[in-house]
């Protein structure tokens, strides 16, 4: 392969945060900074006993899932988010991408923290070897990397949003599953922090994608839309294979696929497109959904109830200071 030079900005001006072209840049920067965390703050060692209750097969599955996630975070940190910088239209957007890139490297490193807490060196090496040899995982990486190398800024953002909002979820399923069974709960806490970050990343890159779309012709917009759905299908088919590779031995593949559909819809929405998978195939296991968010179930919807109950949300302590009443 011919070595490629990373495309860099031709020209840089001192960034002035007192002159803002897009308020979203500041809002997202602040949100990312407020969400900052490090794996060292999560008491992973409390999961050692729980880890010992998993069968060797379940342990192996967990490690493989995490090496797969490590690969994606590594790509996003060293190539994906960085490749978006030359396409940025404001200097503040560039700064946000550097934040995203760094956080992806924190995510990638946090899996190693989990490994070193729970597993032996040999097991860790075996899992990384598996990640190198698994065809579907490697294909997933290749597909995304190809688009990052391409010369179309909008397509790069599509690939990046699909990675942030869709490709991680075959992996994220497992720690949510363990958490719903009261296993590896500290690990799940760490993964939830990653999940929260990826949501902001997907939202922001998807937003910038939509801003970019506004500037191109109707014809180009249609081309990009077709491309998006093609890429999603290509990644989806591969993702289904990958899911079977991982989860067939424990009988969870069908449950994982619902989670994939659900998240594919959210990835599309981040890009401004309508959800594609119908609700008949996005009915995620309620235990998984509530591991993700404790108030995501239907019981929280007034419209779904008998209508006689007068549901008022539980009191939340806000620190917002400008409520006058």
């Amino acid at each position, binding site marked *: 392969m011919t070595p490629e030079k990373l495309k860099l900005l031709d020209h840089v001006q001192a960034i002035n945060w007192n002159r803002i072209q*897009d*308020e*979203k840049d500041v*809002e997202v920067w602040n*949100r990312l900074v*407020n*969400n900052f965390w490090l794996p060292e703050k999560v008491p992973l060692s409390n999961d050692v006993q729980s880890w010992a209750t998993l069968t060797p097969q379940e342990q192996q599955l967990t490690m493989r899932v995490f090496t797969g996630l490590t690969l994606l975070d590594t790509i996003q940190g060293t190539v994906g988010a960085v490749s978006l910088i030359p396409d940025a239209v404001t200097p503040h957007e560039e700064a946000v991408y550097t934040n995203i890139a760094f956080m992806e490297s924190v995510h990638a490193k946090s899996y190693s923290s989990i490994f070193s807490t729970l597993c032996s060196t040999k097991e860790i090496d075996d899992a990384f070897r598996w990640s190198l040899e698994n065809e579907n995982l490697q294909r997933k990486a290749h597909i995304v990397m190809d688009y990052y190398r391409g010369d179309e800024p909008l397509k790069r953002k599509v690939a990046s949003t699909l990675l942030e909002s869709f490709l991680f979820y075959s992996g994220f399923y497992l720690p949510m599953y363990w958490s719903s069974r009261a296993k590896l709960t500290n690990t799940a806490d760490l993964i*939830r922090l990653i*999940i*929260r970050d*990826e*949501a*902001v990343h997907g*939202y922001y890159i998807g*937003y910038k994608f*939509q801003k970019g779309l506004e500037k191109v012709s109707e014809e180009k917009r249609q081309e990009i839309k077709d491309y998006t759905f093609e890429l999603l299908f290509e990644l989806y088919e591969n993702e289904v294979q990958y899911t079977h590779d991982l989860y067939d031995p424990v009988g969870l593949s069908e449950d994982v696929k619902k989670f994939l559909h659900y998240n594919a*819809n*959210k990835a599309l*929405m*981040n890009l*401004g497109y*309508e*959800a594609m998978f119908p*609700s008949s195939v996005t009915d995620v296991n309620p235990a998984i*959904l509530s591991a*993700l*968010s*404790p*108030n*995501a179930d239907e019981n*929280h*919807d*007034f*419209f*779904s109830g008998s*209508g006689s109950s*007068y*549901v*008022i*949300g*539980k*009191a*939340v*302590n*806000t*620190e*917002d*200071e*400008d*409520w*006058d*009443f």
Partner: protein
Amino acid sequence: MTSLVTAAAGADAPGAQPEPRLVSSRLIYFSSVSGNTHRFVGKLGLDAERIPLHPTDQPLRATEPFVLVVPTYGGTGGAGSVPKQVIRFLNDPQNRSLIRGVISAGNTNFGDNYCAAGDIIAVKCKVPHLYRFELMGTTDDVARVTEGLDAFWTRLSQNRR
């Protein structure tokens, strides 16, 4: 913290705040420039008013009972979850007296904070948190909210009689 001075002093920018624009829509919503909530409301096909983005924009004042649709910001612990623009809108006592329910948008990836803005407003304004949806909502969300709102307004008007 909570100021005892009401309404007039609520304006956060010094100088003249534009007089509120009177609106009678039964659906009032906020959506940032990313427009997810705007898209969702558009799909409902109901008459709706959007709370303005900037403090210098003319604020809205409701004249009829309404349901508020609001996205959730922030990430943890409730602080910053309700958009400033919505707080400003609800600081108008007339708007507060006419709100009948809240529908919220969010993302389950935010865990505890999923749709927290709806919870906070429901408690503050003592109205039901009617529905939660993610991002710009699916066709199922649109159908449920359309039907739900219809039933909700019918019930309210019956109760009033």
